[in-house]
């Protein structure tokens, strides 16, 4: 493994949820500790099973792991860190300022940036020389701060206002105001991150074309440090002979691997084969980074039995309303666009008027559907384009009168990630008003947090009222439209794996805060629903059952399972199949 060779002091593993960052970080820690290095493992995985892996309760303090000499571990819960931060700010004014005011403040501090910055605050002490860390030769993190956080912390202008005077000038550094560390500490921490002699960043991805493309974009966004690239869970060639699905997965992955973007090709690269076993326990971890040819699982594994509804069952219920808004939501990479397209096709098949709106950057899927069904129209929201247009519009209009300094300030604020949320929201609100007459199916939607903020100020209402203009249409408030399950159905998409299910549950609670109850969950790319013969896939199918059960019994009001497919579901026919495939 290249990424393990001559490791520097800090090792960060980054990548989308569910790609196996925590497992690889654990395995790395175990391996380095076995070489006699003193290692601290830091997990920020909200589904952290680090404690379970080592058979030790860990939590938010450095804990020695008796089973692994030289290894200590620490778990940081970003949500808890954000909550502690909110309490610090809001606690002193609770019961002092009026309740609605306090609630408003709390929502302001419930966004992703707050969580991110609060978690970074917890990190800081570990990145600088301190008594806390002198004992360790290596500190291994199963996460990394985003490029946005790093850039914010590097902006000299941003700092001058905030931490020196305690009053803000620049945008999203706002959340830093209530943090405890000193500016010099952050500065030192960021310098440590940017120093290739001290820090190595390991990007972890699956061998999927779209995922590799996105990894490439993330890499460009982070833009610092010495970077390595690990492709995890590669399907072994030997297994491909077992059945058609296994062969298709192997073929697809190999195609994705040959089409790795140029920028990624330049990086030192490792592959880790998909393992048949769950990565729990020391033996499993020791086996993860060992390059074995065979999965060693030749014994026939019993097929997993799964009795779950398919997507067309859900679509039939949606169709009964005759019109409405269908928002397909979920983390990147779970297949929102594909499922939104499948829902749209099935609704259109019933003769209903449907408008499918996708923000899929590839636009590939939308193109294959264009003009294929008479009552299906397709449009695209391009987040990059919308953001660029919005940014330019603001600078041209609102910034027109400003002097050079004022304009620089405005430009800096327009670089915040909120800008994209808002730009996309504007495109979104242009389209949802159609849902009174037909079906509008979208693969993108504002988060509950954004909706709450917009609603709290009444800005959302005003925005829609402005867009409705003098049309004289009767309408309830848009927030009411989104909260009414007769008018709006939210489908949450996830994969049958621990971290993606947890991320989906977080998304659901965010929506519930905004008074929006997700109507159904869709578990995509399920191996169990595909009834494989390959022992490796059967093992994975068994591993899925626990997550599917959690979705069915704990999270979802109603749900559907979509099997992992041998062919990419492109075109009307395959999308129909995807929705209708009965899971026996």
């Amino acid at each position, binding site marked *: 493994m290249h990424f393990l060779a001559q490791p520097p002091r800090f090792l960060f593993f980054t990548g989308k949820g569910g790609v196996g960052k925590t497992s690889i970080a654990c395995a790395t820690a175990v391996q380095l500790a076995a070489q006699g290095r003193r290692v601290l493992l830091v997990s920020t995985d909200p589904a952290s099973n680090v404690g379970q892996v080592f058979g030790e309760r860990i939590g938010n303090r450095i804990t020695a792991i008796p089973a692994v000499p030289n290894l200590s571990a620490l778990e940081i819960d970003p949500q808890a860190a954000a909550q502690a931060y909110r309490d610090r*700010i*809001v606690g*002193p*004014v609770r019961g*002092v*300022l*009026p309740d*609605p*005011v*306090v609630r*408003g*403040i709390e929502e*302001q*501090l419930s*966004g992703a*940036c*707050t969580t991110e910055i609060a978690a970074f605050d917890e990190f800081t002490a570990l990145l600088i020389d301190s008594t806390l860390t002198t004992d360790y030769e290596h500190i291994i993190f199963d996460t990394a701060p985003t490029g946005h956080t790093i850039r914010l912390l590097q902006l000299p202008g941003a700092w001058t206002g905030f931490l020196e005077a*305690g*009053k*803000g*000038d*620049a*945008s*999203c550094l*706002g*959340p830093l*105001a*209530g943090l405890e560390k000193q500016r010099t500490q952050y500065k030192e921490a960021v310098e440590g991150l940017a120093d290739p002699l001290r820090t190595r960043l390991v990007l972890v991805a699956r061998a999927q074309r779209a995922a590799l493309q996105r990894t490439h974009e993330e890499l460009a966004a982070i833009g610092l440090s010495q970077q390595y690239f690990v492709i995890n869970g590669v399907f072994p060639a030997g297994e491909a002979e077992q059945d058609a699905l296994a062969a298709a997965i192997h073929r697809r992955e190999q195609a994705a691997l040959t089409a790795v973007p140029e920028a990624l090709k330049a990086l030192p690269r490792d592959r880790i084969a998909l393992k048949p076993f769950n990565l729990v326990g020391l033996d499993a971890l020791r086996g993860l980074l060992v390059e074995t040819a065979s999965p060693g699982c030749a014994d026939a594994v019993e097929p997993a039995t799964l009795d779950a509804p398919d997507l067309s069952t859900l679509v039939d219920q949606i169709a009964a309303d005759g019109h409405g808004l269908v928002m397909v939501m979920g983390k990147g990479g779970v297949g929102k666009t594909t499922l939104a397209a499948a829902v749209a096709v099935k609704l259109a098949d019933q003769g209903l008027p449907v408008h499918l709106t996708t923000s899929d950057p590839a636009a590939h899927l939308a193109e294959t559907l264009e003009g294929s069904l008479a009552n299906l129209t397709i449009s695209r929201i391009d987040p990059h384009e919308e953001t660029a247009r919005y940014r330019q519009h*603001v600078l041209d209009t*609102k*910034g027109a*009168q*400003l*002097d050079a*300094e*004022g*304009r620089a*300030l*405005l430009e800096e*604020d*327009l670089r*915040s990630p*909120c*800008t994209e*949320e*808002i730009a996309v*929201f504007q495109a979104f*609100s242009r389209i949802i008003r159609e849902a009174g007459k037909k079906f509008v199916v979208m693969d993108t939607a504002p988060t509950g*947090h*954004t909706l709450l*903020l*917009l*609603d*709290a*100020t009444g*800005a*959302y209402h*005003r*925005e829609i009222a*402005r867009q409705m203009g003098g049309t004289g249409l009767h309408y309830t408030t848009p927030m009411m439209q989104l909260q009414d399950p007769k008018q709006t159905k939210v489908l949450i998409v996830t994969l049958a794996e621990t971290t993606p299910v947890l991320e989906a549950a977080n998304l659901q609670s965010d929506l519930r805060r905004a008074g929006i109850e997700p109507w159904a969950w869709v578990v995509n790319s399920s191996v169990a629903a595909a009834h494989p013969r390959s022992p490796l896939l059967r093992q994975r199918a068994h591993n899925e059952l626990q997550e599917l059960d959690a979705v069915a019994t704990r999270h979802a009001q109603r749900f559907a399972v979509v099997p992992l497919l041998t062919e990419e579901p492109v075109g009307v026919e395959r999308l129909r199949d995807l929705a209708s495939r009965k899971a026996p």
Partner: protein
Amino acid sequence: MRNIQVFDPALCCNTGVCGTQVDQNLVTFAADVDWASRNGARIERFNLSQQPLAFAENAIVKGLLERTGQTVLPVTLVDGQLALAGRYPARDDLARWAGIAAPAAPQSQTQAQGRCGGGSRCC
């Protein structure tokens, strides 16, 4: 030098670009504050979502919030006395309070537009 304090509504950026509709008043005001500060004015801004304690500890601001709610914001105090509520000061106002000679263009447009609707704010 008189002390100017501005109590902002809950917002994540002082230019308020996070709103659905960027508020021209907020953009202009951020630039005006920048201009006045460069000309020696002493201006402090407090953001409700980041420094709520400053609001709770000021009797005038707290009282306004209790009676009128958040729509009373922004509130401007000059030397601790209420100077303006419900909208941002214009560049002229800042110049007068701070004792800065005739302001350079551009002029703030807050007075013409009345209360700042703001967009919502994210983060």
